[in-house]
């Protein structure tokens, strides 16, 4: 299972065996939605998430 670095908080994000390019994964530490840019080397980019209304 390869690891990529979260572009937001630099935490290690594990790629599952069946992870595919374009898939959206979530960083476990900062909760950012990330898009799998490539598998070799494992790289992630920030996914264009819709700005969720947090309600404050």
């Amino acid at each position, binding site marked *: 299972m390869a690891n990529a670095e979260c*572009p*937001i*908080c*630099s*935490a290690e994000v594990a790629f599952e065996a069946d992870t595919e390019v374009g898939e959206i994964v*979530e960083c476990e*530490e*900062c*909760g*950012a*939605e990330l898009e799998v840019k490539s598998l070799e080397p494992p790289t992630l980019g920030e996914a264009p*998430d819709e700005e*969720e209304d*947090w309600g404050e």
Partner: protein
Amino acid sequence: MSAPATIRASIVGGSGYVGGEALRLLLAHERVDVVQVTSESFRGKLVHQTHPNLRGHTKLKFSGVDDLEAVDVLFLCLPHGEAQGRLAHYAGLADRLVDLSADFRLRSPERYRAAYGHDHACPERLAEAVYGIPELHRDAIRDASLISGAGCLATATILGLYPLAKADVIDRSAIFVDAKVGSSAAGNKPSLATHHAERSGAFRSFAPTGHRHTAEITQELTLGGGEPVVHFSATSVEAVRGILATAQVMVDPSVDEKAIWKIYREHYGDEPFLRIVKDRAGVYRYPEFKLLAGSNHCDVGFERAADTGRLVVMSAIDNLMKGAAGNGVQAMNVAFGFPETTGLGFPGLHPV
């Protein structure tokens, strides 16, 4: 020297909120036998008289301080001034003392007189006492005979800023802190100010300046560098337990968000009680003390104002747990070589 199977512990001054919390934790601690809990005013009474949550959990009654037997560790939960007054007596009863008052927090007698307005009763013991936050002084606690608890507001503030100060990325000339704190931090002595009709719903600026915990924060964030200038202000809020310290510091523009994450992960990644809470999803995206009631967690989060280099650091604790009794038990675990989370695994409640 391997850890003992179980140890004997007693609590001196067990009728207050901190003593009661220490009793709750120690009664459930699998490596501890609670021998005595003292209270002069409630001597002979069942402990659940003052700690109703313990009804049915123990038949223990309050003892008098003069009936204290020798034990392995003595938790001193006395009003300020009493521990320093009779330290030799207590030290004669146990090899390890965990003092949860403010008597032995400061290393320098001068700083103590400035903060507390009178000379310390045994200044020669100040240097030997260890400031008992394991995340800061774990090794020193292991061998210490006098472990001092820390001020609750100081604990939250220090743990929020410590990694940044250690990495020396913040401007030490001006650290602004606004701490929000619940009513239990003031203890169980009633007054008109704590009378429900006066206190309920209050957001009371009880110490805009001159709060005593500032001295501890300054002491612990010096870290071999220049002494930081801490501008501290405290507000009591509509809660019983809980502290949220909101610090504002200026950070070198070269230190971006990723670098800050790295600094916090480097210092707190392996700490069982410290959680970095800066989340893009969910309701609780930054630290919030209401989730921490009864838990020993200190949650730390931050947000960087890119334009000005301002960093807002938020840290939350339960003032009776990581801010007092929970931290005391954690330090005891370190001192006796028990796994550090023993008896401190309660995660907190949600919703609450």
